[in-house]
């Protein structure tokens, strides 16, 4: 176990280094060498550009530039090209809104995903199964941006009613009731896609597990079908869901909920990245991309550990 953890942590560091290098290539190499010219603006003199180049270290070779970028991110000194604000502190400011959105949405999508998957597997082939499968397919086919805008229009802008607030974020610490009220529509917007997805995956897992020997044994022991479903079938079927959930949750925490945050004007990490896109401001995007990748890398290790814990057939090696 300890050897496994050490190896995984070591591997994680290597992946993060590779991730940061790809990020460096994307943001420094693709746009070409005139980063300094872009920052200096249209009326820049050659001296201006040269001094900016020197300041940003653009004259060094790529290893040094890459090292500088990582160092700035780790030490929290990376600043926006556009307005000079500190990227790391801006990302930190966005974390409460992003975490509120993701944790709430995750609770909703896990609850409904498991409910929907179990019901449709238990009634496989019957009408309720087909109806749920159809709804799940519709759920994964809706563009998130559109779903969010429609919910906003119908429930917040007077399409049907105006009972919900029209976007924005209220910190949990300042007013819990308003926080909850503001988050309700975003939670559902983000959760809909995953509910359909998890329901479908769980349904096929349950249908696969029902034919396993240990389920037959449980039935032979005389357990009720309810006990078999909850204690044996569902437990085994939920293990693959843990993997899915770990990675999905990491992706939305790491800024993957950017569209939902943009539609509902939640000032989270994703919204920060969205503003950076509008200004073609690269350092914030660089920070958010690395922050998102770091979440995925860390969570995928956690998922492996959880997997071994939940499924005794798997050994960590």
């Amino acid at each position, binding site marked *: 176990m300890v050897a496994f953890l050490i190896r995984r942590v070591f591997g994680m560091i290597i*992946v993060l280094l590779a991730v940061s290098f*790809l990020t460096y290539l994307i943001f420094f190499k693709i*746009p070409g060498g005139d980063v300094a010219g872009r920052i200096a603006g249209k009326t820049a003199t050659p001296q201006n550009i040269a001094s900016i180049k020197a300041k940003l270290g653009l004259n060094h070779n790529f290893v040094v530039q890459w090292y500088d970028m990582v160092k700035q991110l780790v030490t929290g000194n990376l600043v926006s090209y556009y307005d000079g604000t500190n990227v790391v502190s801006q990302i930190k400011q966005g974390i409460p809104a992003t975490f509120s959105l993701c944790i709430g949405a995750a609770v909703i999508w896990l609850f409904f995903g498991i409910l929907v998957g179990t019901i449709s597997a238990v009634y496989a082939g019957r009408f309720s199964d087909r109806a749920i499968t159809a709804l799940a397919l519709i759920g994964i086919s809706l563009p998130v941006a559109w779903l969010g*805008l429609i919910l906003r*229009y119908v429930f917040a802008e007077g399409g049907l009613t105006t009972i919900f607030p029209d976007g924005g974020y209220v910190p949990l610490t300042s007013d819990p009731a308003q926080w909850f009220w503001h988050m309700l529509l975003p939670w559902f917007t983000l959760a809909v896609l995953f509910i359909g997805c998890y329901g479908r995956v769980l349904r096929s897992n349950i249908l696969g597990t029902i034919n396993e020997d240990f389920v037959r044994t449980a039935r032979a022991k005389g357990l009720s079908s309810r006990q078999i479903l909850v204690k044996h079938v569902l437990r085994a079927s939920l293990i693959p869901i843990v993997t899915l959930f770990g990675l999905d949750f990491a992706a939305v925490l*790491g800024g993957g909920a950017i569209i939902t945050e943009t539609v509902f004007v939640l000032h989270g990490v994703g919204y920060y990245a969205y503003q950076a896109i509008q200004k073609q401001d690269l350092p914030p*995007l660089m920070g958010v991309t690395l922050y998102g990748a770091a979440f*995925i890398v860390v969570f995928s290790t956690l998922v492996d550990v959880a997997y071994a814990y939940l499924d005794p057939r798997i050994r960590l090696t």
Partner: protein
Amino acid sequence: MATTGTTQEEFTLDTAAELAAEAGGSPIEGKSPWVLAGRRLRRNYVALASLAVFLLVVIVCMCAPLYVSHVSHIGVIDGNPSGFVHENGKKIPILAQGGVTFNKNGSANLTAGGGIPIGPQWGASGGAYIFGADELGRDVGTRLLYGGRNTLQIGLTAAAICTLFSIILALLAAYFGGASDWIISRFFDLIWAFPVVLLGIALGTALSINGFHHWGINIAAGSLWIPTAVIAFVFIPYLGRPLRGQVLALRNREFVEAATAQGAGPLRIMFTELLPNIASSVLVLFTLIVANAILTEVGLSFLGAGVQPPHPSWGTMIAEGQDVLSSDPWLSVLPGIAIAITVLSLNVFGDGLRDALDPRAKVRIEH
């Protein structure tokens, strides 16, 4: 087919023919897995109807130039902001001009500043503005068709490029194993480590600044090839990983040994022995990747990292309608309905195709 198990090998076509001959009937003809799959698919009316819907959407969007020349007479980029439509003999400006107007009794009427477009005309104005105008006086119907053309083109092309590269990488990794497998698998892991949308916007934004000018490839900044390439790139591991696994499982089967014994080289084994055996999975995964590529294009364009204005796409149209959502919801609603219909039809067809061809193929992508 990968599904040929041991049970089918005991009951060969020859025994089937013998049994049929004993019974006095004509010998049973052998059917290829593709014929059997086609028969299963033909019985799945929901999947066939979905395919028809998708093809209809593609054909309608391809006819966008005809719509402009015969119905709307308004181009895709140029609006007509100072124009009027005639309704019941009255002239209605396409955009409310805003400012101060004076009533007959002398009181002043303040209206919001210009750019409030007219709503859908439903044919009242003779073909123009059937679905209304946007805030620049452009015909929503025209833009919907051209936007669909761009979105579909990006989705289909990106999925095709992604599938091509994934197949090649999966074959190389699984056939040669060793170092090439290690490098390709680590490459998949690396892309896998980024959230799809974030990697997409990172690449899309970086490329939208100057375009791409490396290794002799020159792509201008506003080109549709940028979102296409970005989407193809970010989806490679989602296709490459499952395909690599499948090839790995086939790699040590007897038919590969037989081909090696016949003196077949790596290329021939990869493309004439292994590739046909994963073709059914490729087909299913391709359908699902197209659906996901369209949704990703919409997401990227909505955020400003995909198709760049003034070019339309269903994603940019949703984004443009966002600012005037409360007054003109149809600007965002229409492209959204178009996307939902297209993606739903692809997903339903992909499901049917999977049931018919390869029930084990799976693809999962986070957004």
